[in-house]
């Protein structure tokens, strides 16, 4: 837990330092007036890419959890496209994404609470919907 906190600290500091925690800067990127955000995303992905490639070769298991090192691989289905598109509309409208929104609160942006409230409402709505789907599916199987 302390290590996850430290990781989060560095992560959040980076989001602040890069100004990605400011929705305006994200919108400037999406509107093609400042391409700097490319360096945030690719810079971060290069660092994780190197670690994900090298660390598993150096040691077998994570010291704190005993878990084996894996990559972040999620199965592909149409949800990735549907969800990605809905997220894209939200991101393009507001300039906020989850990590940057938490960081934005840390730099004093109280207005971002609107976005955080919205994200919880959205996550809750899809949760209720998918819970109903899941129980409908299990009912169908029981028949």
């Amino acid at each position, binding site marked *: 837990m302390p290590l996850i906190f430290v990781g989060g600290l560095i992560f959040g500091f980076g989001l602040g330092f890069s100004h*990605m925690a400011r929705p305006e800067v994200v919108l400037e990127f999406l509107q093609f007036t400042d391409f700097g955000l490319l360096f945030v995303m690719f810079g971060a992905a290069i660092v994780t890419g190197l670690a994900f490639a090298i660390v598993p070769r150096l040691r077998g298991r994570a010291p704190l959890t005993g878990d084996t090192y*894996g*990559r972040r691989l999620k199965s592909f289905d149409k949800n990735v496209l549907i969800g*990605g598109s809905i997220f*894209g509309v*939200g991101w393009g409208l507001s300039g906020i994404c989850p990590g940057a929104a938490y960081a934005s609160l840390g730099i004093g942006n109280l207005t971002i609470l609107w976005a955080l409230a919205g994200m919880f409402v*959205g*996550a809750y709505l899809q949760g209720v919907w998918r819970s109903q789907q899941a129980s409908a599916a299990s009912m169908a199987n029981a028949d």
Partner: protein
Amino acid sequence: MITESTIPLLTAELFPNGISRYAVGGLLVGLGAVVIYVGTGIAAGASTFLESTLSYVSDQSRFQRYRSSRDWRIVFTLGIIMGAMVYALTFQSGVLSSSLYQPGSTGEVFELGGFTFWLTDVQPWRLFLGGILVGIGTRIGKGCTSGHGVCGVGSASKTSIVGVMTFLAVAIGTAQIVVALGVSP
């Protein structure tokens, strides 16, 4: 005729705020994810926090799958908030400065206890409505800019690369439409 000054000029147009603050910030974002990965084997994302935290207050079956990870996800999120606050108390407040750091001019700054904090000018309805869509979309789409964009792309995951291309393209289209409609800020 192409002169030697063309390249810096082009750079100034594409990157009006320079690139160092973005590059350094991005490396730190990646480093934060790597610290967690090396210690725990977890390739972290930020959006699952929404659902895992809802499992404390809702017994919808969908949220229960995140019970086992909900505690550390709160710690991770608090870390992100505190890390950004450390940035606010140092570089944003001007207590520390670096040639790699370039302050920005968006939004509005305010002083609190001698330190500089910052507020967005983006209108609340955009943040709230956008937030709802982000909350729905990241959860259906299995990840956000950190899960898919940082850890997934770092894993060379095809799913994540397709996910990033999808939300990036749609977000660019949306942002262009919003600005074309004259919505500002």
